[in-house]
């Protein structure tokens, strides 16, 4: 819309607080200037209806229609560019007016009276909300009229963890740590083994006096006294096995096994 310089700046709707119907009179003079003062045709209609200074339930719709159409004509005379919905409303109101003036028997449904009533109801509804808003804003408002305590101490609920741990869990955890982290060295120290060197020594010396094939197990020390320990026997067997492999590799012994997992036999290689 184009404003000529002598037209006052329209009031920015975001800056003003709605003042209810009180300002309607003041606006009367400048009616044709305040295109921006209304939020759409319904708003304008409501304002015009209020100018009738009667209860919204008793307004004259015909009079209202005339006022609206007059306003639109004025605006057009001033060559103000009207938004389309103002013009659509004007057309509809013109239709409503003519229908209201027509003989009754030619009416379609809904009747123009019904339409006029609905328009009136719409205006009442909007008017009611305008007034309700004004009354709401006028109440004793927190932070404006009534105040909360300025410096409340505040309530605090501190959550405190009550930690639980069972005796067994503690001990078990220590056991787990020990198992996980005890170095291998520790176990070697405690364990009885037959070293590879001693096994080689034992196997090769026994092999030297043997005549025929001997089962690997026969090279182990007799299973009594200190050699009764099954762990030690496993170690001796393993070491003797490796010793046998070593002797075979160096060409001092022959190995033979007739079937898978069968007895492993060995015999000295005569030079």
């Amino acid at each position, binding site marked *: 819309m184009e404003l000529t310089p002598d037209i006052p700046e329209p009031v920015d709707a975001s800056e003003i607080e709605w003042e209810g119907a009180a300002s309607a009179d003041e606006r009367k003079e400048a009616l044709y200037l305040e295109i921006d003062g209304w*939020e*759409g045709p319904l708003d304008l209609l409501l304002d015009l209806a209020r100018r009738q200074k009667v209860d919204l339930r008793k307004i004259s719709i015909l009079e209202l229609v005339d006022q609206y159409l007059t306003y639109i004509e004025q605006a057009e005379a001033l060559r103000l560019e009207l938004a389309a919905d103002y013009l659509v409303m004007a057309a509809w109101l013109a239709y409503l007016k003519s229908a209201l003036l027509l003989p009754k028997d030619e009416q379609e449904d809904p009747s123009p009276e019904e339409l006029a009533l609905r328009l009136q109801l719409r205006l009442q509804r*909007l008017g009611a909300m305008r007034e309700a808003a004004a009354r*709401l804003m006028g*109440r004793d408002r927190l*932070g404006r009229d009534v105040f909360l305590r300025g410096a409340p101490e505040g309530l605090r609920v501190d959550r405190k963890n009550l930690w639980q741990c069972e005796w067994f869990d503690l001990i078990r955890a220590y056991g787990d740590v020990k198992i996980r982290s005890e170095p291998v060295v520790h176990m070697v120290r405690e364990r009885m083994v037959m070293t590879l060197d001693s096994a080689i020594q034992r196997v090769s010396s026994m092999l030297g006096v043997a005549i025929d094939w001997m089962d690997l197990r026969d090279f182990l020390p007799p299973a009594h006294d200190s050699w009764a320990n099954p762990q030690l026997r496993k170690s001796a067997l393993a070491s003797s096995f490796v010793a046998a492999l070593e002797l075979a590799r160096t060409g001092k012994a022959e190995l033979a096994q007739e079937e898978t997992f069968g007895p492993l036999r060995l015999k000295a290689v005569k030079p």
Partner: protein
Amino acid sequence: MNAPEQASAPDDLVRAVEATLFAAEQPMTVDQISAHLGQADVRPALAELQRHYERRGIHLVERGRRWHFQTAPDLAHLLRREKEELRRLSRAATEVLAIVAYHEPVSRAEIEAIRGVQTAKGTLDVLMEAGWVRVAGRREVPGRPVIYATTAEFLAHFGLASLKELPGIDELRAAGLLDPVDDDMIETAMGRSSQDEGEENTGEQDGGDTDEEGRDDSDGLASSCHNP
């Protein structure tokens, strides 16, 4: 004017409720107060405190099921001067707020039907930012539009125990002015063609808030209503 409860020292529970609400930074529900005080039944204490304070410079009030102390309204003139000014709401925002409060839960399309104009996205945002309006779900109709309602803060701010205390609400309801709007003829007359409604629904189906923005842009016709 001797109120009997003023004649003697309050009992321990009354004192505890008094101290708790006095120290609280937020209004508290009965359940919250009760939980704070070892599940005691605090209602009688609240009633006694409310009576005790009703003629004092501080009042104990219930707003949307939450209780708080506040200064007496009649002393507003003494206290107002030092307090910062509330941000003034635009006329559109106050109107939308009233419509939400009197019609809740209400969709944006319903708000617009009452006001006869499109509602700028920022208007509802301002009200939500103020903490007075919240999204209260979606209406189970085609398009599943978002619906809005007021909050406990709204009640507290405007000094309402509940929405039943909204000024004039009973009369408005009796006059049928709070009934749902269902008036296609006038909708059409106001330039909100059925085509617009269709777009609106599509927009709302997209969900979230983004649809609102899109609508403001796409409804060039409607926006130009008051901003030619």
